[in-house]
């Protein structure tokens, strides 16, 4: 063991990999500090303001809670179902866009992209308006036009929850898988076709198994997001009497103001995350198996899928409809009618009003908040993605001893509900000049989104065969040569996707930002998306529509005017 460690240290200095190692340690430190603080709080007796000594009381309460198991069961079904739907559909879309000759290339590339811009909570509200049993648009339409009284759609059911959150999980699956399919050596698929395999068969038996690390990465992230997600369970689960585990965490904060108890409950999520991560690490331990980019060189080849191309076009189009077009239209109408019920909705546009837009545009923090959020989100996206790649590189490409620990640290923030995590961040910054500054908010967003950048980079790095790096190491290359000349250029598609995803997530973040914003330092989404939480759906819809239009314009300008690629 000692010899192994010593050899490892020598190698680190010879290759110069102490630089990424140090960078990873700094990033890891930034992440682990608030996490350790909240964990410490879980071992104190009580509420904020009443902290007295160390105790296991919170844990005794958590593990003595008889409601835990049924709630956890619901959480697993909900998070697992949504992650499977979202990741699966995302992967399918990525494959269609990257590898098939589906007609309307530009349209097909754009259609999966735009739904990403729609914040999940906007999707929640729109789908509630569409699928609510008695007041929902679809059930009422079925009754009005077809005389069907049965109310087959129900937003307030487990299926409704999985559908809506599943749609919100698609972008992550899509952005994680797209770079993998784009940098895929198609020789294996070609062999299958030569042997007479059908496209669907080839996809299921050759293509997707090779994308397992990225697929699994996206699934793990979506699953963990589902476990801690709060909006869908509150807006759709609660009215349907479906209780999920995370509501216990929020009750601890909202009812008892006990962040220690909330953290103790979160430990259950952490334990689950560890299990999922262990499975992931075990499943990808022979990562060479999944490497599709080798030293032999590769070329992306579009596969002719024959008449199936119309089916794939339809699939992308249907996703576009469900992912953004239908909910967006519903929200636009809702933002322009005096109030929502089915009759009023159907009278549109004769009852059109613009008062909600006036209200939102007069919002005190709209302009400054939007500016702050644009600047901060862009910066955070760049820094986080770069740090994520460096950490993934450190784990998978340096042979430094103990780097697997970063695997755990890098994913840890995802196991904590954002409100719990932000308490830790507030404590870290209290008393420092950073407190009440935009820097603190930036660091908070970095910690919150690091797992996405890291897992995205991990999934992609695993797909690059080590022989490329090894050739460089053998020739005496230092880490910077390997990192900047080999790894980073190959990861370019993944970098674009991750930048885009983190930017979009950060610009609408409420949970982490809410405790880290300060008087005079406005952050647009915090106040704007609070409209959704407080039930001002019309104003929220108007605000959401304005935000969405700004993002659509920004993305379109970036894509067409500056030729930026979002993994496309």
């Amino acid at each position, binding site marked *: 063991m000692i010899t192994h460690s010593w050899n490892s240290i020598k190698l680190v200095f010879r290759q110069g990999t102490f630089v990424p190692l140090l960078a990873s340690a700094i990033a890891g430190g930034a992440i682990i500090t608030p996490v350790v603080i909240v964990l410490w709080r879980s071992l104190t007796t009580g*509420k*904020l*303001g*009443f*902290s007295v000594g160390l105790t296991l009381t919170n844990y005794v309460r958590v593990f003595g809670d008889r409601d835990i198991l049924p709630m956890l069961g619901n959480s697993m079904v909900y998070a697992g179902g949504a992650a499977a739907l979202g990741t699966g559909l995302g992967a399918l879309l990525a494959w269609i866009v990257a590898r098939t000759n589906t007609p309307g290339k530009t349209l097909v590339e754009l259609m999966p992209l735009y739904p990403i811009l729609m914040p999940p909570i906007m999707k929640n509200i729109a789908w509630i*308006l569409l699928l*609510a*049993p*008695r*007041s929902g648009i679809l059930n009422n339409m079925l009754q009005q036009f077809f005389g069907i009284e049965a109310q087959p759609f129900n937003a*307030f059911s487990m299926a409704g929850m999985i559908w809506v959150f599943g749609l919100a999980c698609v972008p992550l699956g899509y952005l994680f898988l797209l770079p993998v399919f784009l940098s895929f050596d198609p020789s294996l698929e070609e062999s299958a076709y030569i042997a007479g395999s059908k496209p669907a068969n080839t996809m299921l038996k050759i293509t997707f198994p090779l994308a397992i690390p990225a697929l699994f990465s996206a699934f793990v992230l979506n699953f963990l997001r589902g476990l801690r997600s709060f909006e869908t369970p*509150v*807006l759709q689960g*609660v*009215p*349907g*009497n479906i209780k999920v585990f995370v*509501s216990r965490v929020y*009750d601890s*904060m*909202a*009812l*008892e*103001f006990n*962040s220690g108890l909330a953290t103790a409950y979160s430990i259950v999520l952490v334990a689950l995350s560890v299990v999922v991560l262990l499975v992931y690490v075990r499943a990808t331990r022979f990562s060479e198996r999944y490497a599709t980019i080798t030293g032999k060189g590769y070329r992306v080849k579009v596969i002719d899928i024959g008449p199936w191309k119309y089916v794939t076009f339809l699939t992308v189009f249907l996703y576009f409809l469900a992912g953004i077009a239908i909910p967006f239209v519903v929200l636009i109408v809702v933002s322009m009618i*005096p*109030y*929502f*019920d*089915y*009759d009023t909705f159907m009278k549109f546009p004769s009852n059109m009003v613009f008062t909600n837009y006036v*209200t939102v545009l*007069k*919002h*005190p*923090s709209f302009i400054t908040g939007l500016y702050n959020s644009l600047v901060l989100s862009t910066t955070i996206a760049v820094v986080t993605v770069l740090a994520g790649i460096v950490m993934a590189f450190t784990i998978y490409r340096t042979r430094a001893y103990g780097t697997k620990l970063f695997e755990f640290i890098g994913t840890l923030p995802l196991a904590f509900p954002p*409100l719990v995590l932000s*308490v830790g961040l*507030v*404590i870290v910054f*209290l*008393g420092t000049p950073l*407190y*009440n500054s935009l820097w603190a908010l930036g660091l908070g967003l970095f910690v919150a989104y690091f797992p996405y950048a890291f897992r995205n980079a991990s999934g992609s790095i695993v797909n690059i065969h080590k022989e490329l790096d090894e050739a460089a190491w053998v020739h005496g290359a230092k880490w910077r040569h390997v990192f900047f000349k080999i790894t980073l250029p190959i990861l370019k598609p993944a970098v674009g996707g991750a930048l885009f995803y983190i930017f979009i997530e950060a610009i609408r973040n409420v949970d982490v930002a*809410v*405790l880290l*914003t*300060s*008087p*005079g330092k406005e952050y647009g989404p*915090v*106040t704007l998306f*609070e409209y959704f*939480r*407080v*039930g*001002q*759906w019309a104003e929220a819809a108007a605000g959401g529509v304005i935000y969405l239009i700004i993002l659509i314009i920004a993305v379109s300008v970036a894509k067409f005017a500056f030729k930026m690629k979002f993994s496309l």
Partner: protein
Amino acid sequence: MSKIRGKILTIAAAAILLAGYSGQAAEKSVKETKAGEKVVPKAAATNATANAAKAFEKVSKELYPKAQQEGNLIVYSVWDVEHLRIITDAFMKRYPGIKANYWQGTNPNIVTRVLTEFQGGQASFDVVLSDNAPPVLRAAGAIAPYDTVQKSVLLLYDPTMPTVSLQVQALTYNTKKLKAGDVPKSWEEVANPKYKGLVALDDPMRAGPISSMLAGLKEQWKNDARFTNFVKGLKALNVPVHKSTSAMFRLVISGEYSICMPALLHDVMEEKEKGTPVEYVKSVPPVLFPRQAGIYIKAPNPNAGKLFAEWLISMEGQETIDKIGRESSRIDFKSKTSVESAFGKNTKPVPVSDKGFLEDPKKWLDTYVKPIWEG
């Protein structure tokens, strides 16, 4: 006199809050009708108004120079940002030289942030302006007691935190879904099995509006059997409970449910103005919950904080509060959302004044509601 005072105190508040028409000037002039309601004669109310105005002018003159020297005011609040902007702008206009700023969050966010800052010794803000948060913060020792000089005109009075507005709960229904003749005539009647499936019910265990209603009714009824039956009746409706009153209210407007148990009066008024098909039952007494301005114990600008609280209670401040659609906390302020004009002159509201509930809602609910609700 002591009998009258005793009755007033009984209605008004348990330990901290004195519901009803309190303050010494008003206290002396309260008369009891045959029905037992407390009313303030016009002359007495006028006196109280004049006295409060004088007291406000005096305290304003005392505090303003000190506050001006401090130069800043930082408010933490649950209120909408648009509302906070209007209020702070009006305050800055009235008191030049004081720069007011604010941070907005939900009640749990406010409590979490304040207590974390309090523990960390951070002198970060001056006033917390909210409903549920101030009593919890006071119980944790984060609030410096401040007794307003305008107490004689307050509907709900607390000697440690000025009540600047009221949260008024009203029994509300969708007029397209329920005829006026079919609506429940009391809070208790909502528990009638005939309303099964029609009621959007706030979660009694989440310390939201219905939890405070239960605390208020328990205090007012002083009848455990009646209270137990009511909670059991609500449970027997077997309807899902909601975590957000506002989101629940939206579902009532959309027609998903017919009855909102409960809705907030200012939301209902705002929607009615838009022509939304909702109406509240005027004969059902409203539940009143105080919205207070608590002065932070480590406030960097305590005088500005006190001046802000006093100004909010003054007629000028109340007009600003009324302008943003929130309910006045004064007995002598007439507006469409004041209890008298919204519910009628002889309405006997249900004040939420149980100190146990206000300061530790979770403990109170675990003691009095959970055994019935989950039993």
